[in-house]
């Protein structure tokens, strides 16, 4: 109880200090002859700004510093210059396989996932009975915790699991042994890609569905009257009209795929064949006492994501059609 009151008093004091700081900022700005709205505005965003500086900017900047240090968590960091990056690029036998796995996973899972999400969204955009029920059903997977779905998929991919049981007649017909999925080094990547489809039926489908619903009907009707086939209408009208959403889904998909963490953390694979870069960072930092090196790899991952995003962004002008919104207002 005493400890609780002490914590509570700290809490209240911090709150009071922030409040006083807000008033001080207001007073200071007024004294500097700032306009009333400006002074009030800055005073009101101050709590958020403080939080942003303390909990976002500071760790971000500090991790940049840590990337150039030898930091085992238990002792203060030691400056080592570029040693972490040298080790990463030239000496670490586990780094490049992990980069390769992460990149291949992104290149495979993002396009396949987008096709899946678009297909699902197109189906859900149809005027069918109980469409609300179907839409809810397809959104449910994204409500489940990632750790639980990882375990679920591990059971499904087991040697005598759901997937192998379901396909056992096919295996028998083709005279092949049931695949070992996550237990087979060569099948680890395909297994993760298949598993990634799970993520398709969630936010992405909802975004694309909303976007599909916004495609002006007049355009589709006009094309139909001109004798355009359903495929032509889809490829020439629907896809260009929803391209901004597709672009958004792609960028977010790439970022999420590059940071794939929960599932590979929960699924054991032979010889570390399923060690994605995020998992590798976690292992290095928390189980190998190499937090400095882990932050260096973290920064490498960030730069890699940044480069990929910039590339996708640069090419976006070629295939994204942004006029939909202005036309609607006509």
């Amino acid at each position, binding site marked *: 109880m005493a400890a609780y009151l002490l914590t509570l008093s700290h809490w209240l004091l*911090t709150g009071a*200090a922030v409040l006083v700081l807000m008033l001080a900022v207001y*007073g200071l700005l007024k*004294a500097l002859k700032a306009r009333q709205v400006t002074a009030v505005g800055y005073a009101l965003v101050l709590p958020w700004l403080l939080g942003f500086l303390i909990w976002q900017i500071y760790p971000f900047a500090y991790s940049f510093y840590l990337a150039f240090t030898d930091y085992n968590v238990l002792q203060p960091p030691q400056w080592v210059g570029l040693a972490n990056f040298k080790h990463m690029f030239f000496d670490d036998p586990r780094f490049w396989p992990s980069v390769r796995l992460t990149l291949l996973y992104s290149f495979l899972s993002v396009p396949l996932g987008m096709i899946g999400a678009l297909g699902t969204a197109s189906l859900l955009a149809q005027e069918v009975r109980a469409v609300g029920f179907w839409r809810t059903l397809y959104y449910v997977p994204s409500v489940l915790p990632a750790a639980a779905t990882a375990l679920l998929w591990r059971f499904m991919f087991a*040697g005598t699991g759901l997937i192998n049981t379901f396909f056992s007649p096919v295996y028998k017909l083709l005279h092949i042994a049931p695949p070992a999925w996550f*237990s087979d080094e060569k099948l680890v990547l395909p297994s993760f890609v298949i598993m990634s489809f799970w993520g398709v039926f969630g936010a992405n489908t909802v975004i694309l569905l909303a976007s599909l619903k916004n495609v002006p009907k007049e355009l589709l009707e006009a094309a139909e009257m001109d004798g355009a086939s359903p495929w032509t209408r889809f490829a020439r009208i629907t896809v260009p009209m929803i391209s901004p959403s597709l672009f958004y889904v792609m960028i977010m998909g790439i970022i999420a795929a590059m940071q794939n963490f929960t599932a590979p953390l929960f699924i054991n694979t032979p*010889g570390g064949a399923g060690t994605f870069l995020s998992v590798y960072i976690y292992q290095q930092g928390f*189980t*190998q006492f190499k937090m400095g090196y882990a932050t260096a790899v973290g920064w490498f991952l960030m730069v890699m994501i940044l480069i990929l995003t910039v590339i996708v962004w640069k090419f976006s002008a070629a295939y994204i059609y942004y006029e939909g919104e202005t036309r609607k207002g006509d």
Partner: protein
Amino acid sequence: MKRGTKLFASLLLTASLGLTACSGGGSSTPTQPGAGGGPSTAAAKVKIRLATWVGADEAKELQGVIDKVNAKATTYEIVSEPIPADYYTKIQTMIAGTTAPDLMWLGAEYMAPYASKGALLDLTDRLPKDSRAAAKVDDYFKPVMDAAQWNGKTYGLPWIAQPVILYYNKALFKAAGVPEPTDDWTWQTFQDAAKKLTDKSKGQYGTTFNGWPPVQMFIWQAGGEVISPDLKSSPVDSPEAIKGLEFYSSIIYNEAVSPARNVISEQGTGDMFKKGKIAMIFGGAADDLDRAPGLDVGVARVPKGPKDRTTFAWTASTAISAQTKNPQQAYDALVDLTEGVQNWKVLAPRKSMATKEQIIKSDPRKEKAADVIIKAAADMRAFRVVPRHPEWDTTFFEQLQDPLYSKKGTAADLAKAVRPKLEALLK
């Protein structure tokens, strides 16, 4: 009006500075003895935080032990802080954030890494002056006490040692007409029996290896070492070590004696044994394998290797954080608590406590196994741990064991290739 605003601003600024200073100073309050005491305890008792990895049920048992210790204590009060998941991640984060618990459980493989990084309080000078039984270093089994020491100094008191013993399913032995394991068993007898006890068509296997028991045990039994006594070399390519590695890889995932890798990863070796699908399994002395419902389980010492019958023992110690603000009280609590925990866990790693009566007192369910456990205790050995142990262990597994078990190379070739890499991590 303007002047008024200015005055107001400067007043506020001063006030805010004062308040921040106040709240900053306030944070030092809880370190003062008795500040968090509460009404029920005397003000003189210092709170000693204890971090453990116990789950819900075990936490209740531990609390019972702690309550007894606290009742007798005059200078401290132990507060249990169980961390059942991500234990070491959390401990390391707390140390980095300077909020480390005063006492913490550490598995043997963490002692040297933590001690070498200055995270633990050195107990070397305090222990000889202490007359309490749990503080007598000589009473501990030497290999177990070694695991709590680094660089000639003692950093913790071991509270458990679990020598590996062999659990076997008597019904399966009878059905296959194989005589039950005795002290005469060697690697050869074990292998032959495992073969006879395997019936793949029934999904029944003689034994199982799966990275457990650790391959080190068999390397030791053959007279080899993975880390030399001076901690400077890793002679994994010595003829003795190769013998151990080859024996291990002749059993693991070999379906003539043991289940395949995917079967193990799906069904779990412990569960397979409890379901009567495995005839012989290696387990820690305190494991629940001998009380599977409907199963008549016998226990035996591990089979003898070419040199001796060394058995691996997992051990853990309680250590004091170097950050503790009350080293004396923390030390007192450590010794009292260790005595309490040693009277609760099997096997208490002290020679004077390795008796049948003590084992039955701590865990009546281990009565049948007690004799075997006591004999095994004489043969037990823990890992030699180095400051960079996690890296060393990862390399040892990923570049020697894993490729060996997946038949990607011979023991001799792989061991020769990995040795310099392992030794680089010892420097």
